[in-house]
């Protein structure tokens, strides 16, 4: 794996997330009946960052849950021999809510498809919206994001690596090429 380019520094990640937070407020006319759901693994700290912003900007308390989509994937046995379930944690009702799914990278769209299915099994939300830090293209399903940190055209043999302090020690986005 070869390093190709730095896409986002820590500050740039924070600014992108701040802009997404404002767009969420704008689009939903505030954040009443809005809940955030981070997709494991790196969508979780990103959702938390958005929740903190909403508190800071408009003093709104928006709950942030965790979604584990392991049991909903269609490529599970292709991906790894031994998937592990870490579990979802959505301790609030999503019935009639605007559910904002948060993930780090939007690629084929299969993760989001699985996440939508998982949310639907919990109840009937009013809307499901999607926020991603990086949209790298190459969709295999008719799925698009409502809030995007950066559109990053990539080739299929490139890897987008998102790091978040909570999990990886530091924050940033890098682009690598596979050898």
């Amino acid at each position, binding site marked *: 794996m070869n390093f190709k380019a730095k896409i986002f520094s820590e500050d740039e990640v924070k600014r992108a997330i701040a802009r997404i937070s404002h767009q969420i407020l704008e689009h939903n006319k505030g954040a009443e009946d809005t809940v955030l759901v981070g997709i494991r693994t790196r969508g979780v700290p990103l959702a938390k960052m958005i929740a903190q912003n909403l508190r800071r900007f408009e003093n709104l308390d928006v709950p942030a849950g965790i979604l584990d989509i*392991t*049991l909903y994937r269609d490529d599970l046995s*292709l991906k790894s021999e*031994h998937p592990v379930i870490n579990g979802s944690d959505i301790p609030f009702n999503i019935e009639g809510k605007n559910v904002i799914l948060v993930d780090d990278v939007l690629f084929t769209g299969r993760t989001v498809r699985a996440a939508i*299915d998982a949310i639907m*099994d*919990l109840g009937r939300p009013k809307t499901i919206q999607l926020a991603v830090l990086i949209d790298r293209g190459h969709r295999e399903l008719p799925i698009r994001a409502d809030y995007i940190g950066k559109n990053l055209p990539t080739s299929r043999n490139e890897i987008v690596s998102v790091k978040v302090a909570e999990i990886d020690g530091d924050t940033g986005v890098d682009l690598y090429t596979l050898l």
Partner: protein
Amino acid sequence: MLKRKDLLGIKELERGEIEEILNTAVEMKKILKQNVKKVPHLQNKSVVILFHENSTRTRMSFELAAKFMSASASNISIATSSVQKGETLIDTGKTLDALMTDIIVIRHSAAGAPHLLARHVRAGVINAGDGMNEHPTQALLDMFTMRERFGQIEGLTVGIYGDILHSRVARSNIYGLNKMGAKVKVFGPETLLPSGLERLGVKKAGSMEELIEGSDVVMGLRIQLERQKKGLFPSIREYARYYGFTPERTRLLKKQALVMHPGPVNRGVEITTPVLELSQSVINEQVTNGVAVRMALLFLLTRGIRP
């Protein structure tokens, strides 16, 4: 990490594997509380339930677990199957393989039958009770129930009473609880206690009173009349008096203790209706947890199988 195709007994499992099953079951239990009690994970898998003995809860529990994971679940009723024409267990297994079965859940009156089957089929095999040997999924759901209530199993004292000799539930629980760091005490008529208990790391209690007083979990077992020779105890009435959990004995029960029973119960024999109705009785909770544990097992045993 569980990396096997079969679950034949608790005896073969390592502590880490038991923990992984219990941890996965925690997530499965959340699915049971969802609006839609169904995940698509086992969509293209086939589970066959092959019971050579009677059962309500284990059979139903496996069937629901498979259905909640979106697998196809089929029941073979022995009475109307080719077993009646003399087909051997191995041949039945080969037939199920040819029918593209992924998991066979088997209950059999002969100890070791699931092990024999597992050696001869491609499908994964889950032991749902084999003779007097093991009933691993019951022990897993029992341990799940204890861990859910107490946070951990390590350090608990579990008192098992009744017909230990004929009980595969007791055997599986003894193996599992020992591995998880709990102490196991037993009580029952001498004729219904197996020899070599000490070698299994089990202590005998001197009376029902002693067992109840000293235990965090009091687990009753049914007298297995279908497996017994005659004459192991004088009469049901005497058995109930000396070896049953009578209402008078409830005052000895610790406030935080749990009363468990794998079911079905013989009301008025090993356990009485007032005891079953205690707030400490978690017998119905055990049944719910059984579904979660079996979902976890189906998930863990089928991962790695390619579609």
